[in-house]
């Protein structure tokens, strides 16, 4: 028998599950997250190993989802002095790197950049030949400025990454092997500045990610878990720990993605709106073919504009710990929340703050804590609160769906007890078993993917040949990432003709996904 271990480290709780070969939940638990992440993981792993009683060596895959990297950027904690070499001159001089970055993040990362000759046109023709001496000089100057990590960006590098790799090789000679190098062609898609920003962020968090994943590995080793380790990324698929150490930015927003994937798995519904109610916020996203729908607009992380693939989410300040207040205009629910202190502060647990959970218990939507403690809350207040929560969620569902048709809704997360089983604008409301650990389950069932994004000239080879070529390339990427070749399929193929000029340049975005090859 072989098993999988899924762990999700959230801001409040660290959840863990063990699944068997049929993806049945053998054990689950929720433990408070810790500052150092490893204490929380240790406690959670202890608990699920104990509950399941399995031999740790039977765990063949272990998957970790964590918001550690996001927090480092948002809270400006432990960021490295990351320098950047941009290949593109003579283009791009008018818009240098770091231009609209917030001052407080610049104080940590600095403004270390050089723009050197290079880059490509949309059709792969070099804008200017690369000059190795120029690159070497630029790197030596950045070294003198004291950088501890390097990002490399190149114009149209998603079409051809060769020049970026030349810079990486020279950087390893000049800066030494200890200075990590992040390539923009590996990080993002078309959109120079956003891709470059994401690459710099990646370089700046590599050190922290490295130590976080290192301690994850240590925790598992000390529990005699010898499984292959994977980190979940924000498109619902996995990276090896080695890859995640080099490209930690892909873990940003992986938490909500894991919940969405877990919701799809637990219900078998692959096209639905997913409402994830936590202690302080509710995230609402959309599942399309079992994967989160991606956001099409630019995404800001810690005030820095990027173009990552990110799940399209709407977050509102509603959760189990949301504070309920009575005003002249009626009751308000949230956005202030007692958060993880709910077990001390809510009425139902003997506290003195009126929370959304208290009203849900009083109304009869859930039974937890001591019901007698909420029996004194005015019926009018309770009714209004329950109605308000329902309206808040209905409005977000309406905002995120794409047509006026009723949609199925899956509700997960610890706070899902707040919601009634009937919501306007929905065709059904499903709360699956194990709804409270959907995120850890989402991590445990993750697949691996490969993707291609670039502009291709369809005039010479013909469109069909190019489509076949990009599909093959995406599949190869998936296999490279650890997918079993026979299971790989194309889940996304987007074709965008380059607008309004009479040319045959087409941008293709392709993604292939497959099941993890057995460990």
């Amino acid at each position, binding site marked *: 028998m072989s098993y999988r271990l899924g762990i999700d480290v959230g801001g409040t709780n660290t959840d863990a599950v063990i699944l068997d070969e049929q993806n049945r939940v053998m054990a689950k638990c929720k433990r408070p997250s810790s500052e150092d992440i490893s204490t929380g993981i240790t406690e959670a792993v202890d608990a699920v190993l104990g509950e399941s009683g399995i031999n740790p060596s039977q765990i063949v895959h272990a998957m970790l989802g964590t918001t550690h990297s996001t927090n480092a950027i948002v809270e400006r904690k432990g960021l490295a002095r990351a320098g950047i070499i941009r290949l593109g001159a003579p283009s791009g001089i*008018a*818009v240098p790197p770091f231009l609209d970055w917030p001052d407080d993040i610049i104080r940590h990362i600095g403004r270390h950049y050089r723009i050197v000759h290079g880059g490509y046109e949309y059709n792969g023709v070099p804008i200017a030949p690369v000059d190795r001496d120029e690159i070497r000089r630029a790197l030596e100057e950045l070294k003198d400025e004291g950088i501890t990590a390097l990002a490399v960006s190149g114009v149209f590098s998603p079409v051809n990454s060769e020049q970026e790799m030349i810079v990486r090789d020279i950087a390893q000679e000049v800066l030494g092997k200890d200075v990590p190098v992040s390539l923009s062609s590996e990080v993002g898609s078309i959109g120079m500045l956003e891709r470059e920003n994401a690459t710099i962020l990646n370089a700046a968090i590599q050190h922290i990610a490295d130590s976080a994943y290192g301690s994850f590995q240590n925790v598992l080793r000390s529990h005699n878990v010898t499984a292959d380790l994977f980190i979940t990324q924000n498109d619902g698929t996995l990276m090896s720990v080695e890859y995640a150490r080099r490209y930690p930015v892909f873990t940003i927003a992986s938490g909500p993605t894991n919940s969405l994937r877990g919701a799809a798995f637990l219900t078998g519904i692959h096209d639905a709106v997913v409402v994830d109610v936590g202690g302080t916020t509710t995230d609402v996203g959309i599942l399309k073919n079992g994967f989160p729908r991606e956001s099409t607009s*630019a995404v800001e992380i810690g005030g820095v504009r990027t173009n990552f693939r990110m799940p399209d989410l709407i977050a509102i300040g509603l959760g189990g710990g949301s504070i309920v207040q009575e005003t002249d205009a009626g009751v308000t629910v949230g956005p202030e929340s007692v958060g993880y202190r709910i077990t001390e502060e809510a009425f139902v647990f003997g506290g003195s703050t009126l929370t959304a959970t208290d009203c849900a218990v009083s109304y009869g939507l859930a039974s937890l804590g001591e019901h007698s403690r909420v029996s004194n809350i005015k019926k009018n207040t309770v009714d209004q609160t329950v109605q308000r929560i329902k309206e808040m969620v209905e409005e977000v569902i309406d905002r995120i*769906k794409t047509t006026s048709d009723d949609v199925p809704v899956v509700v997960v997360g610890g706070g899902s007890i707040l919601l009634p089983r009937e919501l306007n604008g929905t065709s059904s409301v499903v709360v699956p078993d194990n709804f409270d650990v959907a995120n850890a389950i989402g991590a445990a069932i993750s697949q691996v993917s490969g993707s291609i994004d670039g502009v291709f000239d369809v005039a010479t080879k013909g469109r069909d040949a190019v489509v076949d070529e990009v599909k093959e390339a995406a599949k190869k990427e998936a296999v490279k990432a650890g997918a079993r070749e026979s299971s790989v399929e194309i889940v996304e193929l987007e074709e965008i003709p380059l607008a309004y000029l009479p040319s045959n340049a087409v941008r293709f975005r392709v993604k292939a996904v497959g099941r993890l090859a057995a460990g």
Partner: protein
Amino acid sequence: MCYKLHNFCTGGVLVRHLTVKDIDFLAVGAAVLGSGGGGDPYLGKLMAKAAIMEKGEVQLIDVDEVPDDKLVIPSAMMGAPAVMLEKLPNGSEPEISFRAAASFFGTEVCATMSIEAGGINSCIPVYTAARLKLPLVDCDGMGRAFPEIPMVTFSLGGVEASPMVCCDEKGNKVVIESINNAWVETLSRAVTVAMGLSSMIGLYTMDGKTLKKWAVRGTISLAIEIGKRIVQSNQKKMSPVDSILEVTNGYRLFEGKVTDVQRDLTTGFVRGKALFEGIESYRGSVMRLEFQNENLVAFLDEKPCAMVPDLITILDRETGNPITTEHLKYGQRAVIIGMPCVDIWRSEKGLAQVGPRYFQYDIDYVPVEELMKEQSR
């Protein structure tokens, strides 16, 4: 010829300088005037800011300050949006192209200006002005955005797009002299393809005398004022809609939720329509908004309540930020506003070029203020 929307200005000579902060206001305000068109101004904004940081603030001058015999060249960027976002300019393009134009005409160029409001090209002239240390004239050629470049007021005055200068980031430049505007379009597209799908352009060069007759005045300061009002209202957590209407002499046409958006790309333009279901005092009514890149006609319960060339703009109901037609989607809560266009478009020649019949509507143009009067009756 005075721009209707311009009455907040104190008149006389404007003496002011555009700062980095003004650029954020300009981009948002220009998008309001952009009538749903123009796309994302982000890159133009960054280019303008970088140029001001490096070269200093940009002097904004009134149309009347341009000497009759001096030349003004409007500047813009053309190309495939995906490429413009990837291969960014060098910074020397304005100098190279303006020098080429100056030697072509045998006289110095005294200022630059905008072709249209909205999108990346609302900020490109600021970038050009900063890099060349030339003044920016407080005007444009549309007072809004339109789907085709020849839809400028200058065309009514017989000003030709040619000679047009195209320049790339490597320093290549091409001066196009054509027999008419259609050929400018054809040739400049071919040149832009060869330059790698992106070029910096200068066209509709004219002297101060012509400019004074045909320019849409005050567009830049109006856009900045609108943007400032939106940003300041947001800081106070108030709705900016009323203060936008005040400064533009505009009307609140509708408040509603998007219930359907249809788009058709077959004509090379994005033609489509959006349906809004009324909220609050508009409950029970429906608005249909039809667009071709820009918003064209708004129908309230099947009756037109504003139409091109008047400006129709969709604002986010909470923030007042403009929503372009490409970003319209189901579920958005919006306020739709209508603003009178500049008088010049309301002439017979103007309406023939950009009126509802040009866009294949079988209706006669009626100004938004008259339609609103009818409605309140």
